[in-house]
C-alpha cells in the first residue's frame, strides 16, 4: 500500500466519523494551547520582574539598616528595633569607595499634603539630586532636587499628586504644605506607573535633610549605590560593607545586597514556576493522549467488520496497524496545529488585555507542546492499532 493511499484512507475514516474526530482534535488542541498560554504567562511574569528590576536602575547595590541573620533571630528584631540607624554621614562616606559612582540616600515617611482646601495623604521620599540618575527616573516639568544635602523647602511632585492638587493650573513655583512645613514646588515627575510596588506617580520627593526635619528623624530607610560598572558591583558591595563596618564601631549591623543577586533569585524562582505550570499543562496533554487511546479503541470495536473486510481483501496485519497508527498521527498533528493557533491567539489576547505583561511563548514550550502531543498521540494508539491488527478475520467479519 502506498503512503499517500494510507494517508488518504486514514483521513477518509477520520472525516467519516466527524464528531469523534472533532472531539479528539479539541482535546488535543486544548492541551497544546494550555501549555503555550501557561508558559507564556510564566515567561511574561519572569520578564516583567526582570524589567521592573532593571527599571530600578543599573548596577545597583542596596544598603539596608539592620542585618538579616540566617541563624536565629537577634534580640533587636523581637523588639522591632534596628541596632543602629544609617545616617546621612554613612551615606556620604560610601562615596570614598572608588567603585561607587553615585549614591542616593532614601528616607521615607507619610504625611498630609495640602494646597488651599485640597489635601490628601502622600508618601514623602527624602533623597538627593542623584536619585534621578540612580533610579532612572524622569522629570516632566521644572527641575529635580538641588545638589548637596541642603534642607531647602522645595519638593518634586508625582504626576498624579500634581493632577489632583493643581488640575490644569501650573504647579511650578507654587507652595504646598507638607505636615507643618511649607514647600515650594520646583518640579513634576513624569508618569511612570507602578514599579516594584512603588508608585512614583503618588509620591512627593523632598531633600533628605528636609525630610529629616519634617519627620524629626536622622535615620535612612535605605542607601542606593550605583557602581561604576557591572564589574565594579562586587567591589562596591565589599567597600560599602568595610566602610560601614568601620563607621559602626566594628559591628556588622547593615545588610548590603546587589540588585543582580536579587534579580538572579527572582529569575530562578519564576523560571521554575514557568516550568511547573508548563508541566501541569503537559499533564492535560497526556490526558488528551489517553482520550485518543480510548476513542481509538472504540473505533476499533466499531469498525471490526471493516477490519475483517480489509483482512479478507488481503491486507496484512502490519498494514492495518499502519492505518490506525496514521489516523492517530493525523489526529494529533491536526490537534497540535489547531492548538498552536488557539494558543498563540490566546497569548495575543492576553497581551492586548495586559499590555504591561510581556507575554510571549518561549520556543521550547512550542517544541515541547507539539512534541508531547505527537508522542502521546502515537504511543497511545499503539495498543488500539495492535488490537485491530490482531483481530481474527472470521469473527471480525461476523461483527463479533
Amino acid at each position, binding site marked *: *500500500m*502506498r503512503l499517500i*493511499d494510507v494517508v488518504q*484512507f486514514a483521513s*477518509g*475514516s477520520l*472525516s*467519516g466519523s466527524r464528531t469523534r474526530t472533532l472531539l479528539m482534535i479539541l482535546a488535543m488542541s486544548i492541551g497544546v494551547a494550555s501549555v503555550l498560554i501557561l508558559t507564556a504567562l510564566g515567561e511574561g511574569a519572569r520578564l516583567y520582574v526582570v524589567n521592573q528590576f532593571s527599571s530600578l536602575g543599573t548596577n545597583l547595590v542596596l544598603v539596608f539598616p539592620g542585618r538579616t541573620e540566617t541563624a536565629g533571630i537577634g534580640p533587636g528584631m523581637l523588639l522591632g528595633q534596628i541596632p543602629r540607624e544609617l545616617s546621612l554621614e554613612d551615606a556620604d562616606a560610601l562615596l570614598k569607595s572608588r567603585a561607587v559612582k553615585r549614591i542616593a540616600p532614601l528616607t521615607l515617611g507619610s504625611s498630609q499634603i495640602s494646597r488651599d482646601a485640597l489635601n490628601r495623604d502622600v508618601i514623602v521620599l527624602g533623597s538627593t539630586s542623584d536619585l534621578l540618575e540612580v533610579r532612572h527616573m524622569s522629570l516632566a516639568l521644572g527641575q529635580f532636587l538641588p545638589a548637596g544635602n541642603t534642607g531647602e523647602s522645595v519638593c518634586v511632585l508625582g504626576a498624579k499628586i500634581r493632577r489632583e492638587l493643581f488640575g490644569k493650573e501650573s504647579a511650578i513655583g507654587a507652595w504646598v504644605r507638607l505636615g507643618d512645613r511649607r514647600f515650594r514646588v520646583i518640579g513634576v515627575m513624569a508618569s511612570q506607573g507602578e514599579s516594584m510596588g512603588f508608585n512614583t506617580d503618588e509620591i512627593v520627593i523632598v531633600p533628605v535633610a528636609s525630610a529629616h526635619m519634617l519627620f524629626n528623624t536622622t535615620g535612612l530607610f535605605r542607601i542606593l549605590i550605583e557602581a561604576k560598572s557591572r564589574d565594579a558591583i562586587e567591589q562596591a558591595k565589599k567597600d560599602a560593607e568595610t566602610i560601614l563596618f568601620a563607621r559602626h564601631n566594628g559591628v556588622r549591623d547593615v545588610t548590603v545586597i546587589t540588585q543582580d543577586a536579587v534579580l538572579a533569585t527572582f529569575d530562578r524562582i519564576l523560571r521554575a514556576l514557568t516550568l511547573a505550570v508548563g508541566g501541569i499543562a503537559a499533564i492535560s496533554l497526556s490526558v488528551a493522549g489517553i482520550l485518543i487511546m480510548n476513542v481509538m479503541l472504540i473505533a476499533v470495536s466499531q469498525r471490526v*467488520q*471493516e477490519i*475483517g*473486510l*480489509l*483482512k*479478507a*481483501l*488481503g*491486507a*496484512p*496485519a*502490519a*498494514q492495518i496497524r499502519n492505518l490506525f497508527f496514521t489516523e492517530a498521527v493525523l489526529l494529533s498533528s491536526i490537534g497540535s496545529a489547531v492548538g498552536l493557533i488557539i494558543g498563540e491567539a490566546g497569548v495575543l489576547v492576553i497581551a492586548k488585555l495586559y499590555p504591561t505583561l510581556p507575554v510571549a511563548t518561549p520556543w521550547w514550550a512550542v517544541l515541547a507542546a507539539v512534541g508531547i502531543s505527537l508522542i502521546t498521540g502515537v504511543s497511545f494508539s499503539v495498543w488500539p492499532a495492535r488490537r485491530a491488527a490482531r483481530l481474527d*478475520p*472470521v469473527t471480525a*467479519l461476523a461483527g463479533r
Partner: protein
Amino acid sequence: MIQLDKVTRSFMVGDQQVSALRDIDLSIAAGDYVSIMGPSGSGKSTLLNLIGLLDRPTSGIYKLDGGNVSALDDEQQARVRSEKIGFVFQSFHLVPRLSAAMNIELPLILAGIPVHERKVRVAALLENYGLTDRADHRPDQLSGGQRQRVAIARATSMHPAVLLADEPTGNLDQTTGREVINLLEQLTEQKVTLILVTHDPALGARAKRQLHMVDGQIVSKTEN
C-alpha cells in the same frame, strides 16, 4: 487447484471441543463451479473460510496451486488472499463511508497498484457491472442488487483465480438474486473457480458440482 487432505477444524467451546470440519478430502479444479449446501451449523462456512485462508485447519493439509498454503505465515497468506482469492458476502461488507468506485478500488489500493492503473480498472469494472452512473454513490444510496454488484466488482478487481461466495443472494429478493447468480456464473466462463455456499437447493443445483455437508462432513457429491 484446490486440494484438501484430511482437513479438520475444531473449536473449543467452553471446555468442550467441537468439530466443525472432520476429515475433509476435497479437490477442486481450476474453473470449477462448486456449490456447498447443508443445514446451518454443518460447517459449510467454516470450509469456505478455510479455503479463503481466513481460518487455519486444526490438522490436515491445504494446497492451493500446488503450494501448501496452510504452512504460510499470516503475511504470506494475506498476499495469497490479495492475489488469488475474492470474497462475496451475504451482507455485502461494503465500507459505508466510501463511494461505490472507492469500494471497488479498495483491494487495488491495498495491493499498492499505481493510481492511473487503478482508475482504468475501476472504470472498466463499473462499466461491466452497469454501475457507471452509481460510481459516486455511497452504499446506503444503493439498492441491494447494486450493492452486491459493487461487492462482486470488488471481489474480481484483482483478477482472482478463486471466487468464494457465502450466501450471496441471502439478503436479496428473487429477481435480483437471480441477476447476481448470473453475474457470478459468467465469471466461471472466464476460468474463475467459483465456490458458492448456499442453503437454497434450487440455487445449489445450478452448479456443476454440488457438495452436501452434514455435521462437518461431506456426505454426498453430485455432478451435473
